[in-house]
């Protein structure tokens, strides 16, 4: 287990009696790392994923698939449009990168829901399903006779998850029912984009609202949907009752972090975009150093004092002594302190800063005097850097899965559980490639669909 000479930052771990329980703990952890041969938590569940041009639906289905459920992705014969949505069209054998990343452990079938036979087949599947995920316009499935209202009649235990921009109820949900889902508009409407971007004094368009550079809203909705589905599933296991779960993507950020509604109410005025500064603390951000970007994050006064000493700026301590001096809404003050830190780290390398900080922290943890502080740091890494990082290799954060058509694909996976770890068993993304298997298994009629 011990791959580098370890530095311990907690005084509790440095205590004499701590080594025995810690070594027992390490033994348990190394056993826990093993995935092979362990049971899957949800292998008694069947999930239908009907998501269409909605990436959140794909991701929700992936979470169930990683936990062992049989997940059947149901597409129209021409395929789900989200399969090709990928950065600048980048694809692997015609499949977009995000779609391939979420194609773990799924079965792919085609049903033409525009026709009677497809709808009958869907009913047959839904009768045997625990969860159904769909992202069509509210009321659309209902119009086709396969909405929650109809399906619950012959499967009262069905958990029906709907993901749309504004949800399946409310006046807005109805008026804007046909507005399509995108991650970008979800970020914008849920309060995220308004907070990202440079300071008002910066030139346009850099001071405009900016998108978080990944599917921040999409994944948030998906985790919310999966939590809802699992809560409902627990309830179903106890009572046999199913239910409907409604996710509004335009809520994604605000209902996850909670800050926008409360701040809007208590302060009565919206926050300005704060560039690389932080609304809470100063200094709390990444600063440009000699060879990259380094985090300087001081929360408690003692952490701040330690950082000042180590960065050779002790003489300013008098002016910024307490947390209340450093969580001001006076942006000029914040910029002043930020500027001092910026200058102090500019000529140092990350290695130099890290060495100073961690040596200090280890010593401070050992000291009886508790005001020592624990300045923490890290380096900004790109995706390529992260893939090289030993820590994640040891943890098995990235799986390399081989597929005859797509080659070796690298995928992130987490969910380290001692008894039922999440896992990637395979990837597959061929349109209708499991039609034979699934149609047979669930007794579907195969006149036209599996052509």
């Amino acid at each position, binding site marked *: 287990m011990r791959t580098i000479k370890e530095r311990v*930052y907690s005084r509790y*771990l440095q205590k004499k009696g701590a080594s025995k*329980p810690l070594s027992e703990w390490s033994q348990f952890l190394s056993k826990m790392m093993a995935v092979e041969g362990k049971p899957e*938590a949800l292998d008694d569940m069947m999930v239908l994923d009907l998501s269409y041009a909605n990436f959140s639906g794909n991701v929700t289905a992936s979470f169930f698939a990683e936990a062992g459920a049989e997940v059947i992705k149901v597409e129209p014969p021409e395929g789900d449009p989200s399969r*090709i*949505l990928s950065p*600048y*069209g980048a694809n*692997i054998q015609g499949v977009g990168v995000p779609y391939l*990343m979420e194609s773990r452990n799924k079965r792919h079938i085609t049903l033409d829901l525009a026709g009677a036979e497809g709808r009958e087949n869907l009913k047959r599947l839904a009768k045997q399903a625990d969860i159904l995920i769909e992202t069509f316009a*509210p009321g659309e499935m*209902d*119009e086709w006779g396969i909405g929650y209202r109809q399906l619950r009649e012959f499967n009262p235990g069905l958990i029906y998850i709907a993901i749309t921009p504004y949800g399946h109820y409310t006046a*807005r*949900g109805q*008026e804007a029912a046909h507005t399509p889902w*995108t*991650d*970008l*508009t979800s970020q*914008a409407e849920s*309060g995220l984009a*308004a907070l*990202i971007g440079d300071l008002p004094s910066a030139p346009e*368009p850099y001071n405009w*609202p*900016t*998108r*978080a*550079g990944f*599917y*921040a809203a999409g*994944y948030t909705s998906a985790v919310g949907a999966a939590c*809802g589905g*699992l809560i409902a599933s*627990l309830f179903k296991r*106890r009572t046999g009752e199913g239910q*409907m779960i409604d996710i*509004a993507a335009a*809520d994604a950020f*605000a209902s996850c972090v*909670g800050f*926008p509604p*409360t701040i*809007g109410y*208590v302060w009565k005025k*919206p926050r300005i975009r704060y560039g690389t500064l932080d609304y809470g603390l100063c200094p709390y951000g*990444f600063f440009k150093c000699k060879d990259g*970007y380094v985090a300087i994050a001081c*929360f408690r006064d003692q952490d701040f004092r330690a950082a000042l000493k180590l960065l050779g700026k002790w003489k300013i301590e008098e002016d910024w002594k307490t947390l209340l001096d450093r969580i*001001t*809404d006076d942006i000029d003050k914040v910029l002043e302190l930020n500027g001092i830190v910026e200058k102090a780290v500019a000529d140092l390398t990350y290695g130099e800063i890290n060495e100073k900080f961690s040596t200090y922290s280890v010593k401070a943890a050992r000291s009886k005097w508790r005001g020592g502080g624990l300045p923490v*740091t*890290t380096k900004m*890494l790109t995706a390529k850097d*992260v893939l090289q990082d030993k*820590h994640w290799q040891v943890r098995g954060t990235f799986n390399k899965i081989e597929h005859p058509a797509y080659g070796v694909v690298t995928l992130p996976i*987490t969910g380290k*559980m001692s008894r*039922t770890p999440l896992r990637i068993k395979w990837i597959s993304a061929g349109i209708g490639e499991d039609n034979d298997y699934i149609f047979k298994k669930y007794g579907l009629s195969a006149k036209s669909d599996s052509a």
Partner: protein
Amino acid sequence: MTEDYFEFTKKLFAPEDIARKKEALSGLRVLDLSHMIFGPTTAKVLGQFGADVIKVEVPYQGDYWRGGTYWGKYWKHSNPLWHFINPGKYFVGIDVKKPKGKDLILRLAEKADVVIENFTSGTVEAWGIGYSQVSRINPKVVYASLSTYGQFGPYRYFPGWDLLAQGASGVLAATGHPGTDKYFKVPDFFGDFFPGYFAAMLILIALNYRERTGEGQYIDGCQAEILMRSLFHFTYADAMGKDLERTGNADPNCSPSGIFKTRDGKFLALGIATDKQFQALCKAMNRDDLARDERYQKAARRLQADSAEALGKAVESWIKEKDADEIVALGRRHRFAAAEVLDDVQIANDPWRRERGSVIDYNDDMYRKLVIEGPIAMLSQTPGRTKWLTRPLGYHNRYVFKKILGLSEAEIKALEKERVVGNWDYRVGQRPPIYHDIAKDKIFNYEGGEDH
């Protein structure tokens, strides 16, 4: 039929029925040993859906986020940004470093279904309240350790925050404008909240398994790793041999896409995913030439950088001449995604969110009115709800120690004297609001009997 459908869903999700409906997690007891945001969020999700969450803090010090806040702004002697992270919990103050305190925590853990902690790897083990100790007295427990770098691997002893997890995971490097020297973090501690919900999902998976088999387990929830799970950048970097550069306010998975300035000075996000949506946009723009251009008809070609850029420019100059409302209305009519960029105040006052229940005017017995967010998912039969906002440090000591552990008033007094258990000191964030008469508070001075 559609009309009819919305009548059906209106009844299905009626906010006035929520209080009458069942709670899916009722009877579940969660011991929340965590602090700040990541762990407390995980416990909060379980609490919203019916679990009893007992939050343990250090007496006279408390969770550091009690005394935090943005820009030094407090509210009724509390951090206004703490209430929505810890609503509906039972607040007890126990000093784990005293042997009797450790014993009390173990007794609570013995009666818990879920234990959540977020100290540096190994710390709870050193204290004697880790999984190896708790599982011995409570083998069915689901025990979640939440940390920045996880419980194993070379960095496991490194301390971390949301900020560090964003930097270490690749999230930070993904956001900003290409070619600039600024990388923007995702604000409002997204790197705590998102992993918090994710960890709740893992616990719920474990609870589903426990329901089937009776077996508990241990969960290593790693903040940075959970953030990585939400990035397609690794798959991209490995397949393409290069990193995906920052893309400013355009989404490279949509074409055209971006955040644009309107004639009335508002910001509007627009994204086109499918070919059908693109045709709808061209119709709204009255640009038959674009609709017929073969470079744009199919997503695979339209997404390529040259096409995306040319279309982005066309949309930018179109939007510049229109008000935000006009574009949003065109989007509704023609069925493409266009939405105004909303700020804190717009979200707090949004009538749609109020009707939906995703923004709530909450009236609390102690703190009175506060606007908070609703549950992340709306469940028709077992909806989430808020039972109360937060309470001062150690507010529920008597309630929990008497009701759950069966301690007597004399025993609690003795523990207080030894400072094994305790409540607040005078610092902001720990104490009750000044107008609240704590001497008359029946829960704080709980003697037995009535439920909370």
